[in-house]
């Protein structure tokens, strides 16, 4: 029996956000665990692209330390972007998404679960790997800490925004390019504040204003985007 069928058999008549969240989280994490290719791809892409910059620009330590935060953020952003289609495309293609919308649990619950699982499978590895890349770029420990904190707060926002854009483009012509046109402009504020936090620390200023704004962005995204994602999926399924 598929994961969906097993879970559906244990669903009560009235749903709750938490149950839906936990169900979707467990399901998608199980799927990601069984097919680690996606996560490995994200991580490999991140490391590869981050290695391209010193090769292309030259390995002068001061230059690398200067561009490090921004470059690492851009690579993380692109890696997160590349992992977006796997969030909904598979479920949309085989009809599970439609089945899940029939669930008694509130839609925003299991949507948040899916996005959380997606973050655990893509954003979290990026955040954990960033210090190693940062060391390659010769960043100081303080900067690395600020960078990781910024990534830890920012990558969930990327997952949420990315999920909204993915839901909007389900079944659209233009595929990946359309998704890039929609998602990357929306990612820009996160990038600006995220890289800004690390750069502020690198120049001796406090990163907390940037981190605070990122945190505010995360709260705003966590509250405002799940309903938007639900609406987008309903639009896609009609």
């Amino acid at each position: 029996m598929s994961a969906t069928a097993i879970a559906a058999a244990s669903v009560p008549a009235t749903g709750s956000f938490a149950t839906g969240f936990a169900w979707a989280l467990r399901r998608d994490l199980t799927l990601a665990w069984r097919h680690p290719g996606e996560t490995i791809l994200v991580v490999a892409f991140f490391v590869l692209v981050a290695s391209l910059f010193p090769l292309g620009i030259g390995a002068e330590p001061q230059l690398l330390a200067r561009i490090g935060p921004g470059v690492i953020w851009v690579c993380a952003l692109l890696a997160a972007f590349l992992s977006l289609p796997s969030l909904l495309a598979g479920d949309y293609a085989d009809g599970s998404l439609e089945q899940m919308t029939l669930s008694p649990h509130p839609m925003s619950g299991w949507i948040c679960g899916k996005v959380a699982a997606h973050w655990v499978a893509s954003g979290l590895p990026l955040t954990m790997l960033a210090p190693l890349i940062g060391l390659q770029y010769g960043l100081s420990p303080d900067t690395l800490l600020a960078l990781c904190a910024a990534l830890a707060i920012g990558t969930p926002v990327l997952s949420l925004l990315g999920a909204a854009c993915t839901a909007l483009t389900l079944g659209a012509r233009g595929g990946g390019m359309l998704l890039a046109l929609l998602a990357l402009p929306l990612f820009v504020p996160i990038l600006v504040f995220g890289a800004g936090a690390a750069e502020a620390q690198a120049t001796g200023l406090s990163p907390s204003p940037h981190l605070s704004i990122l945190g505010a962005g995360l709260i705003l995204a966590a509250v405002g985007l799940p309903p938007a994602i639900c609406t987008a999926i309903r639009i896609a399924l009609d």
Partner: protein
Amino acid sequence: MINWFYFASPATFYRLAGWMAPWFFAAAAILAVAGLYVGFAVAPTDAQQGEVYRVIFIHVPASWMSMFIYFVMACYGGVSLTFNTRLAAMMARALAPTGAMFTFVALWTGSFWGRPTWGTYWVWDARITSELVLLFLYFGFIALANAFEDPRRGDRASALLALIGVVNLPIIYFSVLWWNTLHQGSTVSFKGTSMHVAMLWGMLLMALSFWMYSVGASLTRVRAIILERERRTHWARELQFT
């Protein structure tokens, strides 16, 4: 009883927009002439920048319109999603190209103003960057609206996208306050301005002109969109064209 929704039908709105649009274009032309007259003949030469500051009579109104049109577009998007109407979605689609045009003009004129005054055509200043992001948001809106076989699906998806992107507008607006960068802070507010009165009037007249033009252009465009979408209907096929 007044039927408040009489013009909510594409068929009736088509005619209304048809007789409204020329008036808005005429108003735009008159206001533009007035604004440019004030801007070039009345407003004095700037002490620091000389004559090149007169770009302001295009640059600032275009920037205001780029943000305002996006806001109106998002509102129409919200209305179309809430009430599931077609016409509101068509209006949103009609506004997008005009908004993108003004965003481009704002960026271009800003660039050509920056070269003689700041020494560079482009700088990654917060406001300029977020205006560039706005241009991409417009492109994304247009692309998404046209990415589906079913135009209604395109309507709804792009309306939702416009609503999500609205968060960019406060970022543009407050960016000069939040970041201490090259772009000048706001000199015009509801409390008053430090600007010379003729310059202010030139700017305001041009802004009104652009506003009237936007209304005229989007009404004209929505008429074309209505014809495209409603071409199978009886009323459309009965239309007489000279």
